[in-house]
């Protein structure tokens, strides 16, 4: 276990180094003067500001020195301030918007799991029968329809036709309370959930089919246990291991993947802010959000990997 841990941590450090370096290089890769790019069209004429930005970016230092300085600040969660929206700290923006994106991701995974587990179990239990082919076909379709199209369909159905839920916007729990919040969150979360649901249910089905062929399932049958009891108590548990792994990895991916859905539903999360920043060419905000999401993603993946090693003894020994 110690060796696995050490190797995994070494890889984590190497990956974090690369991820931060790549994000840092974003400002240096820009054509022309980075200070001008960071300031944006409106502020270029202001020489004092230009000097300030040059100072903050340390443009007179060579790139390695700048990287170390930038990383030192970034570790203390100081990612600079937006010069397009003066005085707005990038780290404050992230703090403000992360809860929204995280809520969407958690809800999406929750909805996906609630739907996917029964579908996968039915598919495995009725392998080869019509129930199986129906759920498999549904999963195939859900995998192929991009989530923004699902989102538009949901808007059309629930906001335009049925007029039950708002088509866009976001109510914070702190402002409007939980039920108002859920009303705005349910559609984007469902749009995100469909793809995840398809992935999860295919995984559960494949795992369960393998598990159901095991001898201990046969012996449980021989003991006269009911099908439902065997499925839920004996078969689902070993199958849930790989499910947990993929849930962990996909949660990390969803933090980045909500960009399109947040834009579609005008949800004020990290992704929506990122798109705004890209449209305004607000370089430091782009850089800050990119490095933050990437680091979170990498860390989550490592944690999932390690947890898996803790749970599954075969990996622990290897």
């Amino acid at each position, binding site marked *: 276990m110690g060796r696995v841990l050490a190797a995994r941590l070494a890889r984590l450090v190497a990956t974090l180094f690369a991820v931060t370096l790549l994000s840092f290089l974003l400002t240096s890769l820009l054509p022309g003067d980075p200070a001008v790019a960071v300031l944006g069209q409106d502020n270029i004429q202001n020489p004092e500001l230009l000097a300030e930005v040059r100072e903050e970016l340390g443009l007179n230092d060579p790139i390695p020195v700048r990287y170390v300085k930038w990383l030192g600040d970034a570790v203390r969660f100081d990612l600079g301030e937006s010069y397009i929206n003066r005085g707005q700290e990038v780290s404050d923006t992230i703090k403000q918007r992360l809860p929204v994106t995280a809520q969407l991701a958690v809800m999406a995974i929750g909805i996906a799991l609630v739907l996917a587990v029964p579908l996968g179990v039915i598919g495995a239990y009725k392998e080869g029968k019509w129930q199986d082919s129906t759920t498999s076909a549904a999963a195939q379709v859900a995998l192929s329809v991009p989530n923004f199209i699902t989102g538009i369909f949901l808007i059309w159905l629930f906001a335009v036709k049925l007029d039950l839920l708002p088509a866009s916007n976001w109510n914070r729990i702190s402002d409007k309370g939980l039920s108002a919040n859920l009303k705005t969150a349910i559609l984007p979360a469902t749009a995100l959930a469909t793809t995840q649901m398809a992935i999860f249910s295919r995984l559960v089905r494949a795992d369960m089919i393998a598990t159901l062929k095991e001898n201990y399932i046969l012996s449980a049958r021989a003991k006269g246990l009911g099908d439902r009891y065997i499925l839920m108590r004996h078969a689902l548990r070993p199958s849930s291991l790989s499910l947990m792994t993929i849930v962990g990895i996909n949660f990390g991916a969803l933090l980045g993947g909500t960009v*399109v859905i947040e834009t579609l539903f005008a949800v004020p999360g990290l992704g929506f802010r990122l798109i705004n920043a890209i449209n305004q060419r607000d370089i430091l905000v782009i850089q800050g959000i990119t490095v933050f999401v990437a680091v979170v*993603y990498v860390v989550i993946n490592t944690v999932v990997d390690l947890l898996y090693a803790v749970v599954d003894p075969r990996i622990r020994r290897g």
Partner: protein
Amino acid sequence: MSTTGGAPHTPDFPSDRLTRVSTSGQIDSGSTGKPRRATLREVIGEMPVLVKISALWLTLVVFGAIYAKLDSTVFNGALPLQDPNLQTNNFDVNTGAFGTGDPLESPSFTHFLGTDAIARDTFSRIVHGAWVSLIVAGVSASFGIIVGGFFGSLVGFVRGRTEAVVMAGIDVILAFPALILLLALVSIFEVRSLTLISLVIGVLSIPAYTRVARANSLAISNREFVLAARAIGTKSRTILFREVIPNVMPTLIAYAMVSAAFVIVVEGSLSFLGLSVQLPQSTWGNMINQARRDIKSNTAQVIWPSLALSVTVLSLNQVGDFFQRRGSNRDAAL
């Protein structure tokens, strides 16, 4: 470019498929001793109906895209297809009259799928949009198969330190959430041409292909026929190009289909966000984005490009899965 590759599907290879190989006559161990390659007709014959329909749709999309491109470049709009950017209700200087079209028309013989919010022919815009998807998917697949396929096969075959270094680099790139990395890269450029978008997506596709190629190359490099080639003193380079790479290819091409599906969705998302190819070039993603604003008054205009995108992705997944199953049969027979 993604660890998910569009659909991180767990290919299940039921054991009964293994027996089917010997009867399906793909590998003819007859008198020549050389395996006979299945003809296109035989491959199509093996396809289930749904896969056949998918393949037909994909062929249509490819031909449509090329036709549209020929029309707008070589023939200057002389071929029978409407101008995708012409606002058909516009004032025409030559005739001195307004056009006869209307915004948001219903389907008719002049406009097969009606017109969009500013009276442009939707059918033509969809066919022209197919060109963008085709190029992005094609460039990504070529980069992936040629560069990723070569390096993956190479490191899986030679192993050692080269492998460790290459795979470490690849792990790092795959550690980035794909869409975020793409957005960050795209945000650098102010002018986004089709060349730029397809190059960026193409380069980002390489790591995933390398990983797939390496895994297959590892397995193949341990097979008897590679050992036999070594034993008779064949040069390593010859083994790599004559034994390993040709056997990695079928799996890689099946993967390319699934990956292309993912790449088309990624380009669609970029277009939807307004960060892909510049307007007025139509793409399925930007058509969906423009039409969704009028969804209260007109749903048809959202439906057509959404259908085109979804059906194409579904078809690529179907055909890709088919070739993957077929490839695994073939592996079992080798």
